[in-house]
């Protein structure tokens, strides 16, 4: 079984490849948290593309694939691209997005040009250089791991020591400057660290997709926590997971580029996060909406029982579905479900096909009716709305007014007796 062969990590080559992939993805995920929070995703993309000419130039100058030399070349052109984006933005009328677009395509174009030239040069050493485009985890050699590993560790130490300062310049740059932090210096260090993270990552992920490894883990992790430290740990874990997977794919199919696979995995993790994360996830929000809808239906039913009770001067009459629908039109299936829920919750009591208030149900129905009329009165008195314009608004607001707000409204309206339509406002009997 290839699976067990790989995940037992007995083969030292596999260990190198896995360790390398994890290190690269973890570094970019951690550093990427700041890129994400500073809203510099596009800059990250420009840097990633701009390291390609650096890698090619280093190779052309030295004629060998020494990882340290390639790294230096990549760092120089990557850094140069950021400098150029800032230069263009400050010295010309072009906006940052245009500057990024220009710099990215020019650098990447030169990179591809050089890469093609190298491939046709007949230099025997050049094989594998093209794996920097889309990444090839399987091509990570022990010496690569040592050099990239060293850079990665420096990176993480840098983030650890400057964590407080990086956080502050990401959140409130003006304040950082006002308290006298060397903001320009810190930004330079953070930018350098970001470029380094991109540079270390390209062997596993490739320049084309590297920006995804900076931004996606951070964006996904942000959905799970409000704490920056935890967010970084979550992002790092997600990055590591996608790194292992990328290495595994590279092991199964050595001719397959790993970058796309790693990005696929991290994107899946991100989609799962966007969908299922508590509170902020799509499902959590849908659930909340369904819950709101149910609450509105239930409260409307109780209010309906109360209004009918007011009319008949008997709040505990048994009522059928048809008699309820006569007074207020609502979808029959919603009404049925609502009646069942309310019966189960003890606000209504059911006998055969008829329902009637319990004491708790009456109190709740009365409260909704009261809030509706109070809000109508509030709108006419404080917003000077015409009495015939306030009903629809009150239909919604009656469901979200809290007891604290209710007492505040009561205070401001001085415990009114009737609403703008001269209907009595019902209060609890004491």
């Amino acid at each position, binding site marked *: 079984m290839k699976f067990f062969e790989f995940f037992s990590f007995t083969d030292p080559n596999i260990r190198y490849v896995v360790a390398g992939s994890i290190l690269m993805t973890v570094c970019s995920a951690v550093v990427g948290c700041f890129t994400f*929070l500073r*809203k510099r995703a596009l800059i990250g993309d420009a840097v990633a593309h701009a390291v390609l000419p650096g890698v090619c130039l280093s190779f052309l100058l030295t004629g060998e694939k020494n990882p340290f030399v390639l790294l230096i070349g990549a760092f120089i052109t990557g850094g140069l691209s950021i400098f150029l984006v800032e230069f263009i933005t400050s010295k010309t009328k072009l906006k940052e997005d245009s500057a990024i677009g220009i710099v990215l395509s020019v650098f990447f174009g030169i990179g591809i040009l050089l890469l093609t030239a190298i491939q046709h040069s007949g230099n025997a050493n050049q094989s594998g250089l093209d794996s920097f485009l889309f990444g090839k985890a399987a091509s990570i050699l022990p010496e690569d791991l040592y050099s990239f590993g060293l850079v990665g560790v420096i990176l993480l130490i840098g983030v650890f*020591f*400057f964590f*407080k*300062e990086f*956080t*502050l310049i*990401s*959140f*409130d740059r*003006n*304040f*950082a*400057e*006002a*308290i*006298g*932090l060397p903001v320009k210096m810190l930004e330079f260090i953070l930018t350098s660290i970001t470029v380094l993270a991109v540079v270390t990552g390209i062997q596993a992920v490739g320049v084309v997709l590297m920006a995804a490894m900076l931004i996606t883990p951070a964006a996904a992790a*942000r959905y799970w*926590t*409000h*704490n*920056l430290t935890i*967010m970084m740990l979550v992002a790092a874990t997600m990055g590591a997971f996608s790194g292992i997977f990328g290495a595994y794919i590279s092991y199964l199919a050595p001719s397959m580029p790993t970058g796309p696979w790693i990005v696929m995995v991290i994107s899946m993790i991100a989609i799962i996060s966007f969908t299922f994360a508590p509170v902020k996830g799509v499902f959590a929000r849908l659930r909340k909406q369904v819950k709101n809808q149910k609450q509105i239906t239930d409260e409307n039913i109780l209010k309906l029982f109360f209004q009918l009770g007011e009319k008949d001067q008997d709040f505990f009459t048994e009522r059928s579905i048809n008699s309820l629908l006569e007074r207020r039109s609502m979808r029959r299936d919603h009404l049925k479900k609502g009646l069942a829920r309310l019966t189960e919750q003890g606000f209504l009591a059911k006998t055969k096909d008829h329902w009637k208030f319990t004491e708790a149900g009456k109190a709740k129905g009365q409260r909704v009716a009261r809030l509706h009329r109070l809000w109508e009165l509030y709108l006419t008195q404080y917003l000077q709305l015409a009495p015939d314009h306030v009903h629809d608004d009150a239909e919604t607001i009656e469901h979200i007014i809290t007891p604290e707000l209710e007492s505040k409204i009561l205070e401001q309206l001085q415990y009114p007796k009737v609403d703008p339509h001269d209907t009595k406002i019902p209060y609890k009997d004491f």
Partner: protein
Amino acid sequence: MIIQVPNPILEVHDLTVAYHRKPVLWGVDLTLPPGSLTGIIGPNGAGKSTLIKAIMGLIPLSSGFVKLFGKDLDEVRQKVSYVPQRESVDWDFPASALDVVLMGRYSQIGLFKRARKADKEVAMECLRKVGLENFANRQISQLSGGQQQRVFLARALAQDADIYFMDEPFAGVDAATEAAIIEILRNMTISGKTVVVVHHDLQSAVTYFNWVLLLNMRLVASGPTEKVFTQDLLQETYGGKLTVLAKVGDLLEKQQFPSREDKA
């Protein structure tokens, strides 16, 4: 009417500030007495925020200088605090109220070091002062606008400075919060601090401040509130922009002209 004071805590001399070469503040000269609660008042686009940003060294000066405590800002930063506009930051940042207040301690803590227990206690105390002690661990995006503004105020208090510059601390806050904030500012001046506030509500300005700067692209007036709040001076501040001044500014921008001959 610009009243100069002896031994000022803040001195601004011939200050001109330009954005993209377009001057937004022309030749401001002013001095503030220590212990004052000062309001910077003026219409939209008068350069109120620009003035305090220039004082804090956040934007380059086209001309002039600023002295705090008779010294350059860099020598006295520990004694100066700045509260940016609430909208200037992204409140969806993953941080708690306490985290933000702790930022006020960063210059005391120093580079590389973590916040100490003492810093956390100071931060908690400052949160208590603004009435947010129960919100210390609340994610900042879950706070109301008024609470966010109070978090910023607590962060400034945590700096324990002697002069505070606040950019629109009353913007978007409810009446109760506004009253609470002005109470805190008053107490600060009573204990000897100087507070300078960008404000744009004329009505409350009279009661809030004991010193007022009237600003509209140039300094119209600076002095004790009762002397400055006159019909004439207010008319001069709010009575429309100076058309010639605005036109010259536009021209400088269009022609890419320096506002001082010796500046490139």
